[in-house]
């Protein structure tokens, strides 16, 4: 049953790639991609429930499906569904109909690579899946072919590939370290590494983990390796921005978490965890500084992704049942919230014909419904109650105090307040400040139902999860925390 659903999950986007290339019609490709999004989500939801009975292994142990992977798959499937709905309406506005089938083929390929990477049981194959996500999405970032988007794609691919090469170096060192215990040839699964870890050389583990952390951390967008992220997120079409932020970053985070488990099992002290916490805190700091002075609406959202990846890194870095639960819950909430923000930003950008915050004014008066949704999303993303992110951030802070990372928890709380003020100040300006140029044309009404419906779909669960943390989630998080601690699997 699980195997069949996994096939469905990955088969739907895989078939879509071919379908889009064959169909040649922009509408057909969009609908095909939407269908794949629906199927993937319909498969991911029951899979997440069933993952508790696992871990399940397939194909000689090359594929694993455990609760940690299932959660990332669920988040990715949600974002894929929302983005594929939004893309139907949004991509029509770009006047690039001839290239749309190729776009949707790449879109489905990107989703497929993300989903597959979360299922990889072999550290080297995981590395390759992550590298593939970069190669595919670079063309999605460059889709608009403007000078800025090509610049963003180039920086993205060069910076991330460099980072990923460091992760490969770390992977090689881990394999070498494991070979002292397991012999020269072995299947480098996460479990094998964990079992070999207690006998590994601690110094080498720390070095290898730091390389992996910096490598995959580049992909996650942890400061100071985040420099590609604002460029790529702001220059790609809005549905792709949502995919990059809500789905891809989590998939790379999963790799760091899996290596952290190995490093924990080795006698390597607090260094690996401490390094993750420091990078998380640094990301929050960097995001706070750039959010306060930001002038570009999509870059504002991008720096908010750096912030939230910092929070998730802190959650996993703190560890323990609370840290893991907070980080996982935050992952889900962020994956719901960030598409909402990027969709709103995309709609406004099209309507006002600019990404400059100073050119977007009187949003509330011109677009009452969308403005309401977007403002609610902005309140949610800054961690205001009654939305989900408030709860998850609270749990992460609590985990910090419990696990003797009090300084990081305090810093995090302080920076979240700074970000709250800075972020919402931009929204205040966009909603309530008068237009500088009174003679300017009123914004065009470009976005139809396809562009607004996914915003509703994202906001509703966000509100529900803010007021009600289901008991079954607790069970799931506790099980995942056990999986990620070094209790016997």
């Amino acid at each position, binding site marked *: 049953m699980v195997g069949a659903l996994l096939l469905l999950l990955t088969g739907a986007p895989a078939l879509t790639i071919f379908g889009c290339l064959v169909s040649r019609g922009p509408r057909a490709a969009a609908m095909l991609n939407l269908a794949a999004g629906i199927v993937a989500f319909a498969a991911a939801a029951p899979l997440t429930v069933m993952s508790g009975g696992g871990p399940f292994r397939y194909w000689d142990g090359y594929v694993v499906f455990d609760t940690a992977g299932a959660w990332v798959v669920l988040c990715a499937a949600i974002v894929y569904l929302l983005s594929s709905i939004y893309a139907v309406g949004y991509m029509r506005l770009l006047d690039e109909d001839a290239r749309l089938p190729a776009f949707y083929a790449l879109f489905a390929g990107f989703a497929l690579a993300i989903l597959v990477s979360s299922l990889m049981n072999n550290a*080297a194959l995981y590395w390759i899946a992550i590298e593939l996500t970069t190669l595919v999405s670079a063309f999605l970032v460059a889709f608009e072919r403007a000078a800025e988007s090509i610049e963003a794609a180039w920086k993205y691919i060069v910076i991330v590939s*460099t980072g990923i*090469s460091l992760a490969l170096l770390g992977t090689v060192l881990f394999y070498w370290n494991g070979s002292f215990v397991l012999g020269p040839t072995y299947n480098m699964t996460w479990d094998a590494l964990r079992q070999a870890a207690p006998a590994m050389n601690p110094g080498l583990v720390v070095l290898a983990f730091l390389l992996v952390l910096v490598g995959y951390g580049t992909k996650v967008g942890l400061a100071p390796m985040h420099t590609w992220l604002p460029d790529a997120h702001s220059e790609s079409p809005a549905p792709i921005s949502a995919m990059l932020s809500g789905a891809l970053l989590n998939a790379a985070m999963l790799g760091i978490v899996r290596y952290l488990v190995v490093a924990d099992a080795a006698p390597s002290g607090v260094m690996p965890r401490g390094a993750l916490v420091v990078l998380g805190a640094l990301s929050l700091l960097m995001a706070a500084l750039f959010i306060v002075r930001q002038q570009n609406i999509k870059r504002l959202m991008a720096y908010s992704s750096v912030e939230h990846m910092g929070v998730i890194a802190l959650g996993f870095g703190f560890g323990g049942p609370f840290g893991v639960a907070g980080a996982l819950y935050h992952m889900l909430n962020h994956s719901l919230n960030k598409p909402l923000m990027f969709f709103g930003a995309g709609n406004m950008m099209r309507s006002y014909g600019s990404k400059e915050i100073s050119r977007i004014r009187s949003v509330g008066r011109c677009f009452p419904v969308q403005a309401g949704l977007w403002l609610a999303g902005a309140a949610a993303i800054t961690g205001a109650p009654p939305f989900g992110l408030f709860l998850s951030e609270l749990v992460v802070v609590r985990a910090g105090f419990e696990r003797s990372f009090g300084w990081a928890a305090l810093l995090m709380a302080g920076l979240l307040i700074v970000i709250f003020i800075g972020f919402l100040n931009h929204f205040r300006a966009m909603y309530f400040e008068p237009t500088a140029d009174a003679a300017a044309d009123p914004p065009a009404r470009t976005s139809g139902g396809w562009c607004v419906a996914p915003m509703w779909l994202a906001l509703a669960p966000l509100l529900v999860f803010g007021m009600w943390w289901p008991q079954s989630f607790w069970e799931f998080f506790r099980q995942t925390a056990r999986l990620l601690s070094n209790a016997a699997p």
Partner: protein
Amino acid sequence: MLLTQLDPLAASLFSATAIASLLLAFVMLGSRWLDNYLYAFAAQSWAMAALGVAVGYFADSAELYLIAALSALFRGLVLPYLIRRMIQRLHVARELHETLRPASALVIGALGVIFSLAVSTKIAVPLGLGGTVVVLALTVMFATALIGFLMLAIRQEAVSQIIGLLVLENGVRLGAQILIPGMPLLIELVILADVLAAVACLSVLVRYLLSEFGNASTAGLKRLVG
């Protein structure tokens, strides 16, 4: 094949090829001509293939011969061919703006080697592998990776950056060949395919850069800040 009890001949063969490829990385660092980078990179890939054959012979493994052959074919011929075509399209034969003179870059590269040696010794001695070929393998691996990084940082032509990435990757491969010859064949093949795909993607992006900016210097990519 145990790295602690190597045949002296094997040890010297491994060392010779590894050091040759490190020197070739310095050739790239010390030049400003794109052609030199290209040939040095191709030669480095051949040195790696030679190392692969040597390891395969002493470990008595047919798989390693296969990997060495594929490595020579793809890294030594196909990739240089792809990059050569890119260079011909560019109408630029050399780095035009230097962030750092080649002479200074060589000095920094040398410092990088010393640093790598220090780190490698620190790693190898607790493992009881001090004074063996492991130290050399680690040193060459880290140093080549650092030189690749340096090239990425100080060179501005798009082609130089691609070669910088490939040197970085070559460095990792080179160390891996000595340290973990037992790495499964499947993984090797997929990584090789991945490198090819990466270079293909980069070459398409170079074409976009050319059509949009009129040149492929990354010095002009300054619009996105803040």
